[in-house]
């Protein structure tokens, strides 16, 4: 799949490779798959959690597929959308996060800079906002720290927070979507 000019495989699994594996899986007619390489395990399933691939973290499956709940119940606190696969030697890139929430009609809140994403004013304090919270326009939602400079992330519109798209302390890129807000009509 990769260009023939590419030399050897890097020592750790790269984002490109994970993407390639997922694409190959998607094109196949398999329903589930577990891949282990370089100490990293990826378990994916097409129609829910794969039959054989028992999630090793005990709780919810950590794959990109989550049960898309037929009749939407009361909005429970969102499961921590931790995309991190099993302990790997710091991969170049995090795995693509799961898309679980219907964001139709929502407003994206993007990162003002490249830096560390902080959901709370300081460690140990409660987060600025959580999923389900109602926010005012210009209310602070998070911090993106760029080399000790704290950049506030504010709500572009009044509404309800429907998704927090990055994990606390994770590096986020410029213009990366951090929150989805459903504006109040």
């Amino acid at each position, binding site marked *: 799949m990769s260009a023939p000019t*590419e030399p050897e495989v*890097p020592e750790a699994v*790269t984002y*490109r490779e994970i993407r390639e594996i997922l694409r190959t899986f998607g094109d196949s007619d398999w329903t589930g798959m577990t891949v282990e390489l370089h100490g990293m395990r990826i378990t994916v399933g097409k129609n829910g959690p794969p039959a054989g691939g028992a999630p090793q973290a005990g709780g919810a499956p950590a794959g990109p597929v989550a049960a898309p709940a037929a009749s939407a119940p009361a909005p429970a606190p969102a499961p921590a959308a931790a995309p991190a696969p099993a302990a790997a030697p710091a991969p170049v890139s995090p795995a693509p996060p799961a898309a679980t929430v219907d964001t139709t009609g929502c407003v994206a809140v993007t990162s003002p800079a*490249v830096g560390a994403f902080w959901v709370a004013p300081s460690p140990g304090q409660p987060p600025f906002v959580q999923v389900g919270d109602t926010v005012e326009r210009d209310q602070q939602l998070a911090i993106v720290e*760029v080399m000790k400079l704290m950049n506030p992330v504010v709500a572009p519109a009044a509404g309800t927070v429907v998704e927090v798209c990055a994990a606390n302390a994770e*590096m986020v890129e*410029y213009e990366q979507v951090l929150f989805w807000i459903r504006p109040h009509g």
Partner: protein
Amino acid sequence: MASPAVLDAGVAARPLRRVLVANRGEIAVRVIRACRTLGLQTVVVTSTADRDGMAARLADRAVCIGPPPAGQSYLAVPSVLSAALGTGCDAVHPGYGFLSENPEFAAACVAEGLTFVGPRPEAVAQAGDKARARELARTAGIPTLDGSPILETTEAAVAAARELGFPVLVKAAAGGGGRGMSVVEDEGELRGRFSAAAEEARAAFGDGRVYLERFVRNARHIEVQVVGDKQGTVVHVGERDCTLQRRHQKVVEESPAPNIPEQVRQDIRCSGVAFAEALGLDSAGTVEFIYDADRQTYAFLEFNARIQVEHPVSELVSGIDLVAAQLRVAGGAPLGFTQDDVHLAGHAVEVRITTEDPARGFVPHPGTVTAWEPPAGQGIRVDSHCEPGYVVTPFYDSLLAKIVAHGPDRATAVDRMIAALDALRVEGVPTTREFCRGALDHPDFRAGRVTTDWIATRGLPDYLEKVR
């Protein structure tokens, strides 16, 4: 001389694993490829304008760090550092331009525990200060373009001029920006004009002090590629002739320099090494000289503490991967070769294809490249980030590709380049292709007789006459 154990002592560097490529365009692609050949992982920073570009696809990861203006992305030190640290990089390669010769950036990388792929920050700072660099050259015994002291009498002026050699420039100490100076061809003219020049200076600037400087009428630009390691080895990889310029922008570069006495060529190379040794160069760099085609002498101009745009011509004649060498020595490895191992073979020429319109004063021309078919074949190398659909934005330099031709001799290399330029297909934006082709095939260039003002005085007028 020294045993390996002694050489290794005091080298604090560690081998690199993951490199942040802090640049864009063809040089980002070039650095990513070099990292791959060394088995190093790559993260490239991008602005929103380059997020879907070739470098972003080739790297193991791309991190968008800001909007298109370079000041908010490629030049934003905190953002670049943040991307490097946030992705677990242990080194930063700055490419050329942008942050490559910013000593504060180099120092900030080191302070954050990142290996800066380039010379030590102190060397970057010293090279960036032109007065300090010139002083270093002088103490290393390298010719510099010195002026005389202030001259009070005609006899003192004549003595100074004899030392410098005619023609000389008579310059007013209070002048500047081209004002208050005149060219004097010989001693008779100097005797007749000197006291009048002092009077004119007094009248124009209220300051009658004047001094002399050597006047280089037919100047060529010759530079020496040097590379060193942290163990103290410094070698040169031959010289490059970058005389074809317009408004101080290089257009065509070649190696070796044509039409120059062999002894002068050797002296220039030795001066390049002498400067690099005086600086304690522990990476790749370029020592630039002005060559006086009439006197067949040279003088130090400046030092560039980075990989240069035109480095491929040196790579083709030497077989040395200079970017890989930069990465290896940054990780503390010895260069692995000495001057005796550097064998320069054949001749290489590079042409910069930019999206500029020579018929309109080389105005950069943004637009979309609708068709792109680079040349290939014997002795042809193309360094480019261009592809069909590539959008040339107004935010960055307009370089589309560097085409490099190598051959056993200069005539063959130039012939191959002309054939390559003919085979290049670009649609959607104007380019300098035709202009460069005309310059290469011009009798002046073929004979190695061009000077730094050739494009302005001869090349461009000839080209404009042809296209109209």
